[in-house]
């Protein structure tokens, strides 16, 4: 029985749209409002007793004590769960700072608003019946982006009703808190060669642009050694043993570098070198590892052995792959599609000579997979240029293949994307003679062409529609005949091509850059991780600044290293030596200290 005590006018006038939405919600028959022993209303939902059946007001005071324990005046109290609002009333009455109330269930909000006078919470920010992301945005506004001010209070009966919602919200808040300080130290480990090598480099640049301290172990320098091993012996076993030794060298370098630079995270992409021993050693030293598996899980099955060794595992496919990972107990995994790097993949002003060299009506940049070989053999009557390596040089392919099938450098690919009227983006397959009807992941070229402002026709992929709006931002084909029709149509309509390409470019720059992906990856990682490992290091810049706050000259000197993570005496000495002018007293002390450090190294004391 609902006892209408108030219609809460303040709510209707402050949140008219939300009021109507809540009002139109169907009431939940499981919500049972009854008088408590003491007389105030109490609420029970199914088996969950939301408030005390004896004295909800007294209980609310106790909950408010808990919520306000250690709260500072500038704290933002985020209350997870509304119930009938007793605890929130108590918190709002006793706390002068900001309060955010979160309740995802519109039926509970409706019931609370119609059952009790909630005027006491009229000054609070309300995140009612919103997605987790929208709720996080409200919290961010409430704390002005200073997530360290957030103090989370969980109304446990409410959490029981929507555990997944609150778990996700908690993870987002944790991630923001953990990332809301100075930069992380990230070690990016690249593969020796292959398609994921540039991806690793784009990730490193993205981390840097996000303001993190990035160390890159670029293993391309070992490519010559890898090729040399292939020529050393005809014995396959010997070759594989030598390759294992090379892998061990590269992997052990990860630990050495990670420890030397006190990094917070080791980030690897597909084919980056690693050994189980190094992965375990990093875990033992509490340095989290993240691996971006930018491969097709059904073609490359090494993930089965390797995914459990990493702390975080990102994939470009989801659904069945995520389920398969869960089966081998890989839980901290999420879908992370590929992206473009706008510093590399961008619109260019090409010279007339470049337009002649790289331009054509139709083009494709990529390697000669089976399905492409078939499809492109049927396009040779067009002004078609085929760029890339590993093509079977049949008579028809030879007619369109550029540079005799040499691999194209990234900057040249960008010129082709810019200069072509239509870029054909056919995802590779060795199993099909045309479009792979079951193709799911979206390749990097999709984003790269889009970021360049190039127009593309791409084969349909099941994961494409959530990245680009088909028909509006991107045009897709499902078979060769359709491709041919679309080529004819869009060659004849340059304005439409440009309009679609521009929409795709905008979408890419706002949603599909490596910066955005890496920010998502870090949010995911730091929703699980506690504060980054280096933050606990006494020589982390935050700790140094805090320790030096009463010594202005020293503080100013150290302030030069904000966002540098763990600072070493070598960093400081280098900085001082690069400056002109008289040495300040703290600078001269650091230089003397640096000499001591070098001396200690000479004597093997370090």
């Amino acid at each position: 029985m609902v006892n209408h005590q108030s219609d809460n006018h303040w709510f209707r006038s402050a949140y008219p749209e939300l009021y109507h939405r809540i009002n139109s919600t169907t009431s939940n028959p499981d919500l049972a409002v009854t008088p408590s022993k003491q007389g105030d209303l109490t609420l029970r939902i199914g088996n969950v007793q939301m408030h005390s059946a004896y004295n909800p007001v007294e209980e609310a005071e106790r909950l408010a004590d808990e919520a306000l324990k250690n709260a500072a005046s500038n704290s933002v109290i985020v209350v997870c769960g509304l119930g009938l609002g007793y605890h929130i009333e108590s918190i709002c009455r006793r706390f002068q700072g900001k309060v955010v109330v979160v309740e995802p269930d519109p039926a509970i909000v409706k019931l609370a608003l119609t059952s009790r006078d909630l005027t006491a919470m009229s000054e609070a920010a309300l995140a009612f019946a919103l997605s987790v992301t929208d709720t996080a945005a409200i919290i961010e506004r409430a704390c002005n982006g200073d997530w360290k001010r957030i103090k989370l209070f969980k109304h446990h009966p409410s959490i029981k009703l929507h555990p997944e919602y609150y778990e996700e919200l908690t993870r987002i808040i944790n991630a923001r808190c953990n990332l809301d300080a100075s930069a992380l130290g990230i070690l990016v480990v690249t593969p020796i060669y292959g398609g994921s090598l540039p991806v690793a480099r784009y990730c490193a640049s993205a981390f840097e642009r996000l303001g993190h301290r990035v160390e890159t172990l670029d293993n391309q320098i070992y490519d010559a050694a890898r090729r040399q091993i292939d020529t050393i012996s005809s014995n396959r076993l010997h070759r594989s043993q030598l390759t294992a030794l090379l892998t061990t060298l590269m992997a052990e370098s990860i630990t050495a570098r990670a420890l030397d630079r006190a990094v917070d995270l080791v980030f690897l992409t597909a084919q980056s070198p690693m050994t189980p021993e190094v992965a375990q050693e990093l875990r033992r030293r509490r340095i989290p590892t993240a691996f971006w598996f930018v491969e097709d899980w059904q073609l490359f099955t090494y993930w089965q052995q390797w995914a459990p060794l990493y702390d975080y595992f990102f994939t470009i496919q989801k659904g069945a792959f995520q389920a398969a990972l869960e089966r081998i107990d890989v839980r901290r995994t999420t879908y992370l599609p590929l992206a473009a790097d706008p510093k590399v993949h961008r619109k260019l002003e090409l010279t007339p000579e470049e337009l002649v060299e790289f331009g054509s009506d139709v083009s494709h940049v990529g390697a000669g997979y089976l399905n492409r070989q078939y499809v492109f053999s049927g396009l040779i009557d067009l002004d078609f240029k085929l760029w890339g390596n590993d093509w079977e040089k049949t008579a028809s392919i030879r007619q369109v293949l550029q540079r005799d099938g040499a691999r194209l450098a990234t900057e040249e690919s960008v010129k082709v994307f810019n200069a072509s009227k239509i870029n054909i983006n056919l995802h590779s397959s060795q199993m099909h003679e045309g479009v792979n009807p079951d193709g799911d992941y979206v390749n990097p070229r999709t984003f790269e062409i889009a970021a360049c402002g190039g127009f593309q026709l791409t084969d349909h992929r099941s994961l494409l529609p959530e990245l680009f709006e088909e028909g509006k931002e991107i045009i897709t084909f499902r078979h060769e005949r359709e491709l041919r029709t679309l080529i004819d149509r869009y060659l004849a309509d340059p304005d439409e091509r440009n309009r679609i390409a521009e929409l795709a470019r905008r979408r890419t720059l706002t949603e599909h850059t490596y910066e955005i992906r890496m920010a998502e990856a870090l949010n995911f990682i730091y929703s699980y991780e506690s504060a980054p490992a280096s933050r606990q290091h006494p020589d982390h810049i935050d700790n140094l600044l805090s320790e030096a706050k009463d010594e202005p000259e020293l503080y100013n000197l150290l302030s030069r290293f904000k966002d540098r993570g763990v600072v070493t005496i070598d960093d400081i000495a280098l900085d001082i030596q690069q400056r002109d002018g008289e040495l300040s007293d703290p600078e001269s002390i650091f230089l003397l200290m640096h000499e001591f450090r070098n001396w200690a190294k000479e004597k093997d004391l370090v």
Partner: protein
Amino acid sequence: MTLVSNRYTTIVVQLARLGDLAQTWLLIDRLKKRNGPNATALVVDRRLREITELMVGKNNVLPLPINGYLRHTATETLLKVWREVADLKQILASSAARTVINLNYHPAIAALAEAIPASCHLGARWKDIKTDQPSDHQIRELFNATSGLRRGTKHLSDIWAEYAENGVYADPLQPLKLPEEVVESGRRIIRSAGIKSRDAPIALLVGSGLIARSLPVSHQSLLTAELSSEVPVILVGSRQEAQLAEDIIRASSASSECVVSLCGRTNDTAVLAGVLSCCRLAIGVDTGPLHLAAMVGTDCLGIYCGSMNYRETGPYGSGHVVITPDDPDYPCHEREMEINPQKYTDAISPDSIIRIARDMLHGDSISLAPGVGVRVFSSSLSFKGLVWEDVRLLRKPKGVNL
């Protein structure tokens, strides 16, 4: 950890090891004579505090825990070390002098020396060392002498003396006179170790600092066996060399009344100086105790083979003798000696050392025959400094059967 006042005319920074410190005695002695007994201070490694106090006076030593600072750079937090170094700098800054002489060609020590306010800084400057372009030609020589090249012809003490009185030796060098209680403590240690004879013993300096410089146990045991039949022998070294000394004694089969090991019992450098001052002769390779013995006026027989160049670092003073291989390739580079130490430490036969030691004990002229592959030099001081005289070996030495 401060110097007592700002009264100093000169502060000498010597943060190297015992041998280098002992070799600066000439410089210290001249400065004390010229400016007065309390006008010179020494900045040294804390482990050498006791002997330094004997050299310049108790209150004129700034002993720095250098190894502590160095270790802390590896183990302590950045700001903790910074504060330690800031304190050190403050101490140095409060220790003003007219002249600061830095005797180490090392950037850290130069930076530290330059933190002491002075109107004149002599020796290696921090900037010079960083650019490896010493503006001071003396320091260039000093650097060459200590860089392992071992081709110098000038003694370190002469270079340092330049700073004291422009290279002119007005007075002969007097050994450091130890207080009677220090000498007595040395005597006590020797007696308590079991030496019954009242004869002053020979000190055999068993250690070497660098393993490559060590004389083989067989050589040292032969020396011990032969010499202990005439005079008591004490084996001197660090705690780490105690086992080596035991091996030498065991192999020598000498009586425990004639040979004792003091290894590990003379870690206090003043006590070590007291012990050495009670000896008639100190025998050993180029080590700290050898230079300490020379500083306190005990005759030294230096065994200089391989990279040990007596012209640069031979025992300083009058009446010392060094024995070297008769080899045109002597002295070699330090690295060569590290690679093949035995080649060099075997180059001088124990018989030659025994013969010269006996001559020195008896006050005889050196009676070694030529053709045994060694050369012998004896030291004297002229007004120009240290002179090494090539001792001409006799074809038919009297009563010697080598």
